[in-house]
């Protein structure tokens, strides 16, 4: 047989065996383009990586191009694409968080030591915040989280093959929730001619605002989406990824049905056709819990709207509402330009009610207990309460439900058991990595929406990271900027290039303050979404409040 080789072969040949295998593992349900990320998870879970032959097969199976599959797969950091001839990753991955809180307590050393000590069949990855900042430093073996991680604890976990997270043991399950009067409100709402207008009014009167960070009044949001044409969809954001934030995890680990009931009430009031819950991939135990409880719920109520639980794949940006919508549609999580707003043109082009998990968590209580119950809380002329995720140099880190408007000093003293021994307050992030950094001199400022704007900061998801005299604002700000560089979706110039250049400038010994300021301005002014617009906050705060740390 003669062979010729003069022409370069174009395009890969479909591996038919891979296609057959893929069909097997995907099951027999009709293929849906919007489930692309779910399918990628199935492949990754089965093969511990994404060999391109399966990606090619998936493209054929979904009738889309290879490029479309690849660009989505490569966007999410939990997917390991393996090209022909490349080495597959080790079976086990240990992820070590290196975001602000964990780095403050030695994450970098832990990573270095683990890389040295663990064998080659374990991969050690530094990853952004995994949402357990109250027990920093944190590592995750497979999906199993290790609080206050040490080399020894991790070695032990690896050797005992403790690699899968379990559903939280203390969570109130369906039957318990029902026993405690759960879903009674939803039941009454559905069966009786409950005054929907009264519900809207209660929510409006309570003054509760969206608890994901943007703080849009919840009652008004419901009213806006309700007025849109049907079908309307609902998307729930549990992509809690803001460094320092872990409140959603906290509530879901305890009382998932309080959230689900709020969700169903919202769906009923607003007239929602389908519900999509987007849960970050890092919360594997909660994923199992929600899967189980949603099944319970769906078997309890026959007439629920379709509810889909979607799994993130390692992308902070998908916590941005429009990026999350893109991700639910099975695409790269790139934020959309607004207008149009998602309330008008959202998921699959339909009007969409989008909420942070916690916003729905309080719905039942507010309706049952009345608007005043919520608005009667508050300090320093602020109303309501906030779930503060507190981490850093305090004695009792964790989620603290405290009055809105409380000051940092009050929060530390009354809820967090004071500063750690040997630590003096130096500054704090009032709203996660993106909320900026305030100095100790501003520790008596009320913490709430709008109160921090004049100081160049915002409360966002109420993630308070407390810095002490052992910490450097400059180092934590640089950590934050590196995080944004890593997590930028890459779409727009000010954010994609800006975060890279800013990180470079910040790692210089001498800071070019003028250039940094100019760069911060364009990032804040011209980025498409909140990530890029806020990414400069910590840097700007260092320039403004911590000049002593800067060599000029």
């Amino acid at each position, binding site marked *: 047989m003669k062979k010729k080789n*003069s022409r370069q072969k174009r395009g890969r040949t479909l591996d038919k065996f891979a296609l057959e295998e893929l069909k097997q593992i995907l099951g027999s349900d009709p293929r849906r383009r919007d489930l692309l990320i779910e399918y990628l998870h199935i492949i990754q879970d089965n093969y511990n990586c994404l060999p391109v032959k399966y990606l090619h097969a998936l493209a054929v199976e979904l009738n889309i191009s290879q490029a479309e599959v690849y660009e989505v797969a*490569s966007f999410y950091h939990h997917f390991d694409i393996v090209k022909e001839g490349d080495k597959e990753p080790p079976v086990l991955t240990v992820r070590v968080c290196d975001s602000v809180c964990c780095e403050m307590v030695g994450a970098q050393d832990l990573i270095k030591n683990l890389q040295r000590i663990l064998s080659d069949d374990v991969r050690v990855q530094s990853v952004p915040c995994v949402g357990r900042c109250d027990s920093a430093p944190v590592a995750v073996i497979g999906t199993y989280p290790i609080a206050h991680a040490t080399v020894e604890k991790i070695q032990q976990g690896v050797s005992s093959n403790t690699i899968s997270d379990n559903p939280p043991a203390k969570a109130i399950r369906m039957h318990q929730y029902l026993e405690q009067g759960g879903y009674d409100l939803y039941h009454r709402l559905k069966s009786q001619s409950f005054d929907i207008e009264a519900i809207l009014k209660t929510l409006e009167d309570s003054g509760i605002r969206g608890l994901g960070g943007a703080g849009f009044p919840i009652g008004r949001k419901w009213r806006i989406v309700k007025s849109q044409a049907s079908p309307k969809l609902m998307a729930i954001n549990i992509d809690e990824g803001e460094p320092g934030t872990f409140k959603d995890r906290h509530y879901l680990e305890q009382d998932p049905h309080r959230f689900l009931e709020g969700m169903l009430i919202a769906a009923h009031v607003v007239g929602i056709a389908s519900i999509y819950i987007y849960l970050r991939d890092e919360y594997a135990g909660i994923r199992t819990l929600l899967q189980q409880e949603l099944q319970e719920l769906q078997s309890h109520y026959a007439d629920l709207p379709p509810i889909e639980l979607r799994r993130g794949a390692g992308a902070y940006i998908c916590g941005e509402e429009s990026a999350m919508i893109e991700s639910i549609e099975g695409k790269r999580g790139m934020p959309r*330009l607004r207008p149009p707003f998602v309330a008008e043109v959202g998921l699959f082009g339909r009007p969409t009610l989008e909420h942070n998990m916690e916003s729905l968590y309080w719905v039942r209580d507010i309706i049952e207990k009345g608007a005043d119950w919520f608005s009667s809380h508050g300090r320093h002329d602020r109303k309501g309460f906030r779930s503060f995720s507190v981490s850093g140099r305090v004695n009792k880190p964790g989620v603290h439900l405290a009055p809105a408007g409380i000051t940092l000093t009050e929060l530390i003293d009354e809820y967090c058991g004071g500063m750690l021994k040997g630590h003096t307050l130096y500054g704090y992030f009032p709203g996660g990595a993106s909320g900026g950094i305030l100095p100790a001199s501003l520790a008596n400022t009320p913490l709430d929406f709008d109160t921090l704007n004049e100081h160049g900061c915002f409360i966002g998801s109420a993630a308070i990271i407390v810095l002490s005299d052992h910490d450097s604002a400059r180092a934590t700000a640089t950590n934050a900027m590196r995080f944004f560089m890593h997590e930028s979706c890459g779409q727009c*110039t*000010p954010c994609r290039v800006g975060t890279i250049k800013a990180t470079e400038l910040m790692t210089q010994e001498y800071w070019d303050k003028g250039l940094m300021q100019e760069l911060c301005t364009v990032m804040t*002014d011209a980025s498409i979404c909140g990530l890029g617009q806020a990414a400069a906050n910590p840097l700007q705060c260092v320039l403004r409040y911590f000049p002593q740390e800067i060599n000029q």
Partner: protein
Amino acid sequence: MTESDIEFIFNGEPINAVQGETILTAAKRHGHEIPHLCYNDGMEAVGNCRACMVEIEGERTLAASCCRQPSTGMKVNANGTRAVGAQKMVMELLLSDMPGSQYTIDNELQSWVDKLNVKQPRFKSRTKLETDNTHPAIEVSLDACIHCTRCLRACRDLQVNDVIGLAGRGSDTRIVFDMSDTLGQSTCVACGECVQACPTGALMPSGGVGKVQPDKTVDSVCPYCGVGCLLSYHIKDNKVLHVTGRQGIANQGRLCVKGRFGFDYINHPERITKPLIRRDDIIKTAELSLDPSNPLAIFREATWDEALDVAANGFKSVLKEQGKYALAGLGSAKGSCEEAYLFQKLIRTGFGTNNVDHCTRLCHASSVTALLEGVGSGAVSNPMKDVTKADVIIVIGANPTVNHPVGASWMKNSIKQGTKLILMDPRRSELVRHATHFVQFKPASDVALLNAMMNVIVTEGLVDINYVEKHTEQFAELESHLQNYTPQAMESICGVDADEIRATARLYATADNAMILWGMGVSQHTHGTDNARCLISLCMITGQIGRPGTGLHPLRGQNNVQGTSDVGLIPMVFPDYQRVDSEAKQARFQKLWGVDYLDDKVGLTTVEMVNKAYDGIIKGMYIQGENPAMSDPDVLHARAGLAKLQHLVVQDLFITETAYYADVVLPAAAHPEKTGTYINSDRTVQLGRQAVSPPGDAKQDWWIIQEISRRLGLSWNYSGPKEIFNEMRQAMDSIAGITWERLNSESVTYPCPVENDPGKPVIFTDGYPTSSGRAKLVPAGIVPPDEQPDDEYPFVLITGRQLEHWHTGSMTRRAHILDSLEPDPWVAVNTRDALRLGIEDGIVIELYSRRGRIETEVRLSDNSPEGTVFMPFCYYEAAANELTNAALDPQAKIAEVKYCAVNLSIGS
């Protein structure tokens, strides 16, 4: 300003925006330029570069003016400190990552940097990326990439080739091909739309041509397929540097690999630049033994005078000795209308017969026959781009992504907007991915399938009775004929489930607007005319014609096959399809051409001519730009016929396989070397302009034809294409209203009978140009293919074209990029057949039929169904037509090159 306009304040001045307009486009219309990079006319605005930021009063952040629509009274500031600061900083950020040297002289980033006076960037540059030069046509230098995604949108939104992706994220965000493959190894079809879209030169034509300042740019039309894309040649030192698409009705700036990268055949060293006369010592043999790079092995060089004299004297002696019926002429669909017009006029008035034809015979002759019979006109009812207005598209027997790539892009655009595609073909093609129904019927069972669809339409009451009654005749005959063609009965014949037949019939019949487009898969059969009759009837009984987005479109294969047919380069008709056997038409042309005699006998067709040459009846032939020694079916027989000719004059660019048999070879000018009109598949008349001068002594075809005519005693004295065109206008009512001057500024779609008529893209809006004014419904029965597979020859050979090559390959195989993309002959064999026969991908096999035997490489492919093989016919070293069957459709005389019986064996 109209009532719906929006007035807003831009830089302190009130201006208006029309509905849907953005701040950027409204400002531009008022003469205000806002910097922009990711925005590109004709593409979706995505607002990612953030260069066009403006300040809107009352808004917290700046807004991207390319995406934002103004509202009444909105105060927009694009030149204040804040907006300009952002614009400049965006430029500085991008500039900081640019490589030291430029890849293009048209770098949009650099031009904005200059305009905004952005200083030397103060940021560190990113790490240098390696250039990907794995693709022969396109050089990828992602170090100049600004991630604006214009290439991606060009690839995916416009051309819908879906090769380019935006992968990774954050600092790792990058443009990729397929799954981060090199461009050369990717599925890229090299349409080059991305190159045209790239603002910074990250994607450029290979060879650094983008860095050269051209001497001039000449607007012209593409020399390849029937889509008729308009393009610009960028010229340096009398050579084409590169090609860009320009705004044409049919292409809107788009091109394909051939049009964009297939131009340098004109500079190929094998180009003949001097007239050649056959050496006395070289005897003609049927067997081809050709080295096109060494013409002097067969010919000697001559002066034009000598060559023209020998050429003309040869014809004169045949005329004198054997009479006029011993002469014939074959013209070309690749040349201009003017050339074709002169050529047929020469044959008719100089040779004195209608023995003139061209490759349309092997192309859409059957479609034209059926159309002339059914609706009185052989051209399309609607332009190709009308698919964007259709709700349902039927594509049958065509592979437009390969043969009409830009036309296919409109189909894909339309499908993305919700139009449903019914793709009917024995072979799978790229369009399958976009089809709602892929109806994979058995080869040559078109009539069974189409009759079954019509049976469904008739029995389920889906006939448009009003239309049928008002505009058609013979419906009753058709209706009764269709009775036996039930989907159940046809299921086993065409291999398509009865339910699928029903579903597609219903979808087509009930669509608001539906178009049928077809190609050679329909026409190139002994029952090609019957196939086309069925399509016409299908369209007529559902009334799917006469409106935008609704009608019939035979996809014409060559750039000017419509035009050359229109101007009478066919043996039955004078220009404008006026029958040669009509006394009235004869009188008209005698008067126009100043002759007192025109033959009333229908002449010989393409295949017939060569057969008659073989039989010794045709003794002399004049072949201009045509290559029957490659394109005719059963080509060994055709070559033997050509070898028997007493006198053969070939006019071409190269020593083609046909020129091998010539007594005189006349070096002609190539497409970019001449000016003339071309008519695309849409009936649109367009001007091709001379961009470079012909090499050596090569001459323009019109001049050569005129010189021959003079030596045959005709007193022609045309000064050039314009004068010829003006004579054509007198001969052809359909283009009578089109002036040369108008063509200089716009393309015009005929019929355009009087000057200033806008032209008529959609015809048959009210009746038909038949004697009754009605469309004739002609029933068609099942006629089996002439040669069926048997034990000895168990496979069906389907021939066709491939994206990179055109017709017999005489041009494209000499275009270095196209040739390097597809250098060797190949045959596609179904994977299951290959497994059964132990054939591996890439091996060389022998493919043979009752008529010939060739060696070719195998490509395993499931595009061809089991039991069939497919081969492009452009490879001289393994000419597929050595195997094909010359059986003809009885009416149209088209050959059945889509179906013959072959066998294959693994070579030694």
